[in-house]
């Protein structure tokens, strides 16, 4: 590749921080079919249910047969780059600040013609593979990659904008006491994060894995208790302006439902750690993340929520936990809208039962903490915002898409031992 990203120099504190400005974000409702695919890293185009024509730009009626049945389907992303241009002047502030910018006309083998952002190695006349990505506005765009062996998008200066790649970035992992927190710190360090701050409540208390965590390169342990507003605010005051990615690993997982439990103690704890913890972190770190969304190569980029897939549908065996996770999901949707103005993504990572003590009695398949951590790094470096990790998460997602009522019944049957 002719240009690759390299570690940015230390920021000159006297220079103005570039204000986050977004690329044009408005889309038709039909076009958000592509946003849905891009959010999960899929490639989908409208395929006419009546004549099978593959369509782009998104439409509400088929230009071949006038059918209005135009669902989005997985589609062949391969095509040929017919013509390219280097945009050197723009009426849009976002692009003016990032010129020159290469785009081109791609004819897909499936038929449609697509104007796309170009990877640095995509060449006129050559074969390309299109990807659908969320740009800084959170809406989908098409990106032409040189082929299946393209260097990662995050290494391309033009396309890194569409990822939240941890390389060169400074990350906060909010709880290092858990297996997931420790795996996350190691994975982010391996991915080239400039520094990984790892939060610890009561740092004087020893915990399993502590020695290994302290040994991870570029890890710095910091005091943080997400159930303590003062603790969260104090840490944000100290390092908030240096944090580019927040990964909330604070967890509180207990088996048990709603009616079967007695009293509110556990439910309160769940809500305090998970839901109020998320709110405390969002209030302390969100505004500065949003303000630093365009602050150079290592700009603020993402707020990552690790959510049980049962945030999407209650699993009565872990019913109160599911409810707390659902509250977190709703808060995350709100936070996503709030951070959008800064071009900062909220990444929701939905996981199935983990290979940890709190899911001990749950039969496999389960998700190893290291697999969850890898999935988070992958999500950040490819720029997706909704991720499903593990076979159970994939299963729930697939069943939810087909028949949510069946899923509700079946998860309930499981709890009743039927």
């Amino acid at each position, binding site marked *: 590749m002719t240009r690759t990203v390299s570690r940015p120099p230390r920021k000159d504190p006297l220079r103005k921080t570039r204000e986050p400005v977004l690329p044009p*974000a408005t889309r*038709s409702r039909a076009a958000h079919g592509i946003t849905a695919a891009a959010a999960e890293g899929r490639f989908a185009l409208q395929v006419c249910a009546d004549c099978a024509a593959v369509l782009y*730009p998104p439409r509400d009626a088929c230009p071949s047969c006038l059918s209005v049945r135009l669902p989005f389907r997985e589609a062949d992303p391969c095509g040929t780059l017919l013509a390219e*241009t280097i945009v050197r002047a723009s*009426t849009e502030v976002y692009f003016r600040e990032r010129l020159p910018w290469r785009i081109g006309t791609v*004819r897909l083998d499936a038929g449609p013609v*697509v104007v796309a*952002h170009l990877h640095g190695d995509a060449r006129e006349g050559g074969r390309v593979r299109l990807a659908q990505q969320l740009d800084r*506005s959170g809406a989908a765009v098409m990106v032409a990659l040189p082929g299946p062996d393209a260097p990662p998008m995050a290494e391309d200066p033009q396309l890194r904008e569409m990822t939240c790649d941890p390389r060169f970035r400074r990350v906060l992992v909010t709880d290092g006491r858990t297996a997931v927190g420790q795996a996350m710190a190691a994975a982010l360090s391996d991915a080239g994060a400039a520094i990984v701050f790892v939060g610890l409540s009561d740092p004087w208390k020893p915990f399993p894995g502590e020695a290994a965590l302290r040994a991870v390169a570029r890890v710095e342990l910091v005091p943080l208790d997400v159930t303590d507003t003062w603790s969260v605010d104090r840490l944000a005051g100290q390092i908030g302006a240096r944090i580019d990615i927040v990964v909330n690993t604070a967890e509180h997982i207990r088996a048990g439902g709603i009616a079967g439990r007695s009293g509110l103690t556990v439910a309160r704890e769940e809500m305090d750690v998970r839901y109020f913890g998320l709110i405390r972190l969002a209030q302390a770190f969100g505004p500065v993340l949003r303000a630093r969304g365009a602050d150079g190569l290592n700009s603020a980029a993402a707020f990552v929520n690790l959510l049980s897939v049962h945030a999407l549908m209650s699993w009565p065996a872990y019913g109160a936990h599911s409810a707390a996770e659902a509250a977190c999901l709703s808060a995350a949707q709100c936070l996503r809208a709030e951070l959008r103005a800064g071009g900062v993504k909220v990444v929701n990572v939905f996981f199935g039962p983990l290979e940890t003590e709190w899911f001990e009695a749950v039969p496999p398949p389960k998700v190893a903490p290291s697999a969850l951590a890898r999935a988070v790094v992958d999500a950040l470096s490819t720029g997706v915002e909704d991720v499903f990790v593990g076979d159970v998460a994939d299963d729930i997602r697939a069943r939810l898409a087909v028949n949510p009522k069946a899923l509700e019944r079946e998860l309930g049957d499981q709890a009743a031992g039927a």
Partner: protein
Amino acid sequence: MMGRPTPRRASYDGVVACAPVTIPYRRYSTNSAHWWIGRALGELTRGAGLKPKDIDGLAVASFTLGPDTAIGLTQHLGLSPRWLDHVPMGGASGVVALRRAARAVQAGDADVVACVAADTNHVDSFRRTLSGFSRFAQDAVLPYGAGGPNASFALITRNYMNAYGATREDFGRLCVAQRDNALGFPHALMKRKLTLDAYLSARPIADPIHLFDCVMPCAGAEAFLVCRDDTAASLGLAGVRVLSTIERHNAYPEDPIQIRGGWAMDMDDLWAMAGVRPEAVDFVETYDDYPVISMMQLEDLGFCRKGEAPEFVRSHSLTNDGSFPHNTSGGQLSVGQAGAAGGFLGLVEALRQLTGTALGRQVKDARIGLVSGFGMINYDRGLASGAAVLAGAA
């Protein structure tokens, strides 16, 4: 319907276009589109010796008239027309307004149709017009950087150069000749001579498009009247006859990149109806928002074969005193692009040339002129095309 032979199209006999009006363009204007339209209609009626109430037909083209359309204008301007048309077709709006008005007059639905196109240009209105231009542009072009048609035409130009071996010098010849024509035209915003060297060394906008391939957005208005020839005669107005017209939208959707326009579909019809051949034309006004699209018009309207426009511009002189007078007022590239008025500019200039009233350099013995329109980059290409063959007094 299907299977039946196409009936011969009725002629436009008995109808003329007359009273060409241009309100001098300005780079920026604090006035509204309503103000520019009002000025144009005022000048049109005063010049023609009409009262505003004599206008019983009105065709309007404008991008910046919002939230109004033609209907709101009737009350705003105090007109009570019995025939009203809003023509939202940008660069094709002049030809489209002309052919619709001509049929209305011919059928007796209106006696005197005022055709007017105007746009204002506030400091940020060009960007705003672009950002609300079309759904496909919103979904599939605006998020890709240029914010306007520059990049779309860069890709079209690049593909044309690859296909037919056109060079930047070829496009430059066209732009330089138009600037020469503009130097005699008092309303042109570009007042300085353009050399080929200056053209070639201009700053790049979106490769291979450079500064002088692009039009300058501005404010302005153009207008003309369409009426019966006896009406024009009674008003003492020199009329221009309409020999033929064509119009086509979304032609050749199967072409992966636009390399021809709708004119190619209808060219034979255009010349057959006109009863003349392209060689009979004394001057040509193409729609020139970028030189590549003028090249396509020369090919698709039959002045040369497909792919031969580069050679055509090399072997002709395109100034008003040359072998092929082209865009005789300087075109949008030198006069400026006043939004939808850009779609009227060539037509209004042709009316002047054919009535011997050119504001700039008169083309000698101009009897027959061709005017072409092109517009609406909805996604990756211009959708609307149209053309008219016009003739001065026999």
